[in-house]
């Protein structure tokens, strides 16, 4: 008998989703209660995850198709925390647009469930199921503000392109299956020693599909449009939560089934990384919409995470995970600021709207200052340490070219972050924004800013947790 306790989080969250759906159908005006119950669900799931799986070093279930190890537990917890915070700060935004419905929390929960399955997957089929579950939920979320043209456009675009990439991914999976005779990662790892051409195709297809999901250049085209068109809270969700899951899957694919084929994929990852870092930095310069700018900046940040993965070392993987965790905090803080730019039920999302913010809203601007400098990677803020660990791992493998290109692109990236700071601090002020924000929004902004600002005092804690992850 399998030890079902290990998948208890997934079981619990799926039962809750069904319950919430039924509740939503049969009870009128139940959006508020669904919201609160979903938050509750996420909390309980996180607690179960910590309790049941955090001490497990590595276990497999269901014919070894699901793996529970430290990485999966940690990434699930980050996903859950991210999901919780997104949900908790969305409510006032959704109410403004009159889309405060039961579907929203349920969709978020389902995509989280999909991600959790992805994170734990040790089998091509399980992985694909998880991926599709999260993607389908995300398509709907992108179009969630369906009265707006841009939102529908974003959803459709995302759906078409994402379906294409899923197709590629599936094709790659079938090629790999054809050569190894198994869908199980461990078995594949043992079977794949040959340097067959077609196998390389399989790997490339899978990597392309995954690169699409984390929007690495050159598979990033969808990101700016989708990020801009989707409702802001959904964009926030897009920029952080799916990336965690996709990164985990990336790590698993590269370092479990394809570990022996490192010569084949290392160049691809280095290319993706450099292209994303450089393109993300350069393309963001001309943007006028903050959400589009964040899209490009997140492309750049994904480049840095990939740089850690390209090293093929445990330090590299750990540094990528640290990077993504700090990135989650920074993005959460940035979006909290963005959600505060509200005046009479209208949200502002152009960079020009930030003009002179520091005169009317000194505290909000100070937070933005800290967040933006951190995103630019200036010490002593958290963003610097994220980059620092990545480059430490990269340089350990003597990959100087990657490190220098990465660091030079931080200088280019610094330019557009500075531009926002310039607009906030040096330009003329505009009208005041509303200040009656929900408590949760203020809470998430304050906590994340303080985390960013004071991370340098206790940098060891995060490293200690992450250093337990040893894949290779």
């Amino acid at each position, binding site marked *: 008998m399998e030890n079902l306790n290990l998948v208890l989080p997934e079981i619990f969250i799926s039962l809750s989703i069904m319950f919430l759906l039924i509740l939503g159908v049969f009870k009128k005006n139940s959006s508020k209660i669904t919201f609160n119950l979903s938050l509750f669900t996420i909390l309980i799931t996180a607690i179960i995850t910590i309790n049941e799986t955090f001490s497990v070093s590595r276990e497999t279930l269901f014919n070894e198709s699901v793996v529970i190890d430290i990485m999966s537990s940690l990434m699930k917890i980050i996903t859950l925390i991210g999901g919780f915070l997104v949900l908790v700060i969305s409510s006032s935004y959704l109410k403004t647009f009159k889309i405060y419905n039961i579907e929203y929390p349920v969709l978020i929960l389902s995509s989280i469930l999909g991600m959790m399955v992805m994170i734990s997957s040790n089998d091509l089929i399980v992985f694909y199921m998880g991926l599709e579950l999260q993607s389908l939920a995300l398509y709907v979320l992108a179009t969630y503000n369906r009265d707006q043209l841009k939102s529908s456009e974003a959803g459709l675009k995302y759906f078409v392109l994402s379906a294409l990439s899923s197709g590629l991914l599936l094709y790659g999976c079938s090629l790999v299956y054809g050569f190894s005779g198994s869908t199980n990662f461990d078995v594949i790892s043992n079977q794949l020693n040959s340097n067959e051409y077609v196998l390389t195709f399989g790997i490339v297809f899978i990597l392309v599909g995954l690169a699409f999901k984390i929007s690495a250049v050159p598979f990033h085209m969808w990101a700016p449009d989708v990020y801009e068109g989707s409702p802001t809270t959904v964009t926030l969700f897009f920029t952080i939560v799916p990336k965690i899951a996709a990164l985990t899957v990336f790590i698993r694919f590269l370092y479990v089934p394809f570990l022996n084929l490192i010569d084949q994929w290392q160049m691809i990852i280095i290319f993706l990384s450099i292209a994303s870092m450089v393109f993300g930095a350069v393309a963001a310069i001309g943007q006028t919409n903050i959400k589009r700018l964040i899209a490009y900046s997140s492309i750049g940040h994904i480049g840095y995470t990939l740089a850690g993965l390209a090293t093929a070392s445990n330090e590299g993987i750990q540094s990528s995970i640290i990077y993504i965790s700090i990135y989650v905090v920074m993005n959460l803080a940035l979006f909290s600021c963005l959600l505060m730019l509200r005046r009479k039920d209208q949200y502002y999302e152009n960079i020009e709207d930030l003009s002179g913010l520091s005169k009317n809203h*000194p505290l909000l601007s100070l937070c933005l200052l800290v967040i933006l*400098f951190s995103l630019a990677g*200036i*010490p*002593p803020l958290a963003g*610097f340490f994220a980059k*620092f660990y990545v*480059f*430490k791992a990269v*340089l*350990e493998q*003597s990959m*100087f070219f990657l*490190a*220098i290109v990465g*660091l*030079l692109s*931080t*200088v280019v990236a*610094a*330019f557009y972050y*500075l531009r926002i*700071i*310039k607009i906030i*601090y*040096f330009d003329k002020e505009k009208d005041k924004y509303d200040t009656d924000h929900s408590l949760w929004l203020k809470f998430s902004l304050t906590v994340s800013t303080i985390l960013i600002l004071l991370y*340098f005092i206790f*940098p*060891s804690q995060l*490293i*200690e947790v992450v250093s337990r992850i040893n894949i290779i």
Partner: protein
Amino acid sequence: MNFPILSSLILLPIVGALFLFFTKDKEGNNLTAKYVALFTTVVNFLISIYLWISFDQSTSSFQFVEDRVWIEGFINYKVGIDGISILFIILTTFITPICIISVNNSVKNRLRDFLIAILIMESFMIGVFCALDLVVFYLFFEAGLIPMFLIIGIWGGERRVYSAFKFFLYTLLGSVLMLVAIISIYWITGTTDVVQLYEIGIDVKYQNLLWLAFFSSFAVKTPMWPVHTWLPDAHVEAPTAGSVLLAAILLKMAGYGFIRFSLGLFPIASEVFTPLIYTLSVIAIIFTSLIALMQEDMKKLIAYSSVAHMGFVTLGIFTLQQQGIEGSIIQMISHGLVSAALFLTVGVVYDRMHSRLISTYGGLVSVIPKYSILFMLFALASLGLPGTSGFIGEFLILMGAFKDNFLVAFIASIGVILGAAYMLWLYKRVIFGKLINKDLKTILDLNRSEYFILSCLAAPILFFGFYPDPLINTIEVSVTDLINMHNTNIASK
């Protein structure tokens, strides 16, 4: 472990800044905020003086060392001072209160935020000078960009945005390569602790590249020709207090870095690249002096003169002679005082006339004599007249240079003449001549606080000009040991 006196030096300004952060910002002249900031910095100055008194001059080993685990098994938070760094710390703690007193007129709005920025800047600068770990050094070195960017950008002149961006991006671009080098050093030697690195030494085959990476950062910050172009812009647009901090202390970080890291960690590479430094320094001295001659903006002129003076400093450091390095350190301290004083004197007339152009002025001696006398003193100190601290530094540097390379020293000496030319010509055009501009007739002489701060700067300039022993005694042992270490390293390879 004793009382962590260096950490308290670093932290105190931040505590002051936090205190200011929680006070209410008033429009106009916010005296309370100013007094809080002043009090903090003066206390800091007194602590640093105490540090100097209790400093043991007979040894070159690091003193007041604090060593704490920061990132487990990787970086230690390690600070400590030797004869070289202590003077820079005192310079920092001395200049900052002067900046704060001087903000009377130059900063009109958001005084509290300005003071917070200056205080945070101070603690980063002190951190740079006492860091004994490369990563800690880098952290402080880079973090200083944030407050300076804001100081230039928020309170600067008309082209402030351009200047702030140029300052930030130039310096950042220089520094990222240093970060690569620092991490590489960690992987080569297994530590980033400077003291340990001095003992272990770095393999010769890596030294050249690492030296160049550090050089790229320090050259921008010094600034050396041809990457000096950010400096005139930043100086001109920054508010007076910002220019003072920039010229007096920020530029010294690079000179300090050259001595501490380039010479100490990469002796062989330093030897290899000495011709490069000589060439760039000589070009900086001659070329920027000529540019300074042609300037019509007083602040720009002083900015270019800073580049020329820093050219002397880099020249002196890489002579690798006792006199040269000592001269460079004294020149840096002296330049810190003199350039601060010059920017403040320009600030005085700028506050009254709102013009930095030399042509606006002329004949000031008949209306504001006190000002003219002090200005004369600083101008003479800047051109290195015997009896001022400027002379000691330049003289020692040239002495070291003559020992090492006659031609370079000869050309650099021409720079001294050019320096005299532009400074005296500036003085003549501003102070002497006919009083043509009618507005100048009603101009007021120095008020009490201006008089006070300028005298505060004049006193050490004269004192150390006549009696440089306290400075030389402090640095002597450290410099001797540095050179000995350097020579043994060269000999052993």
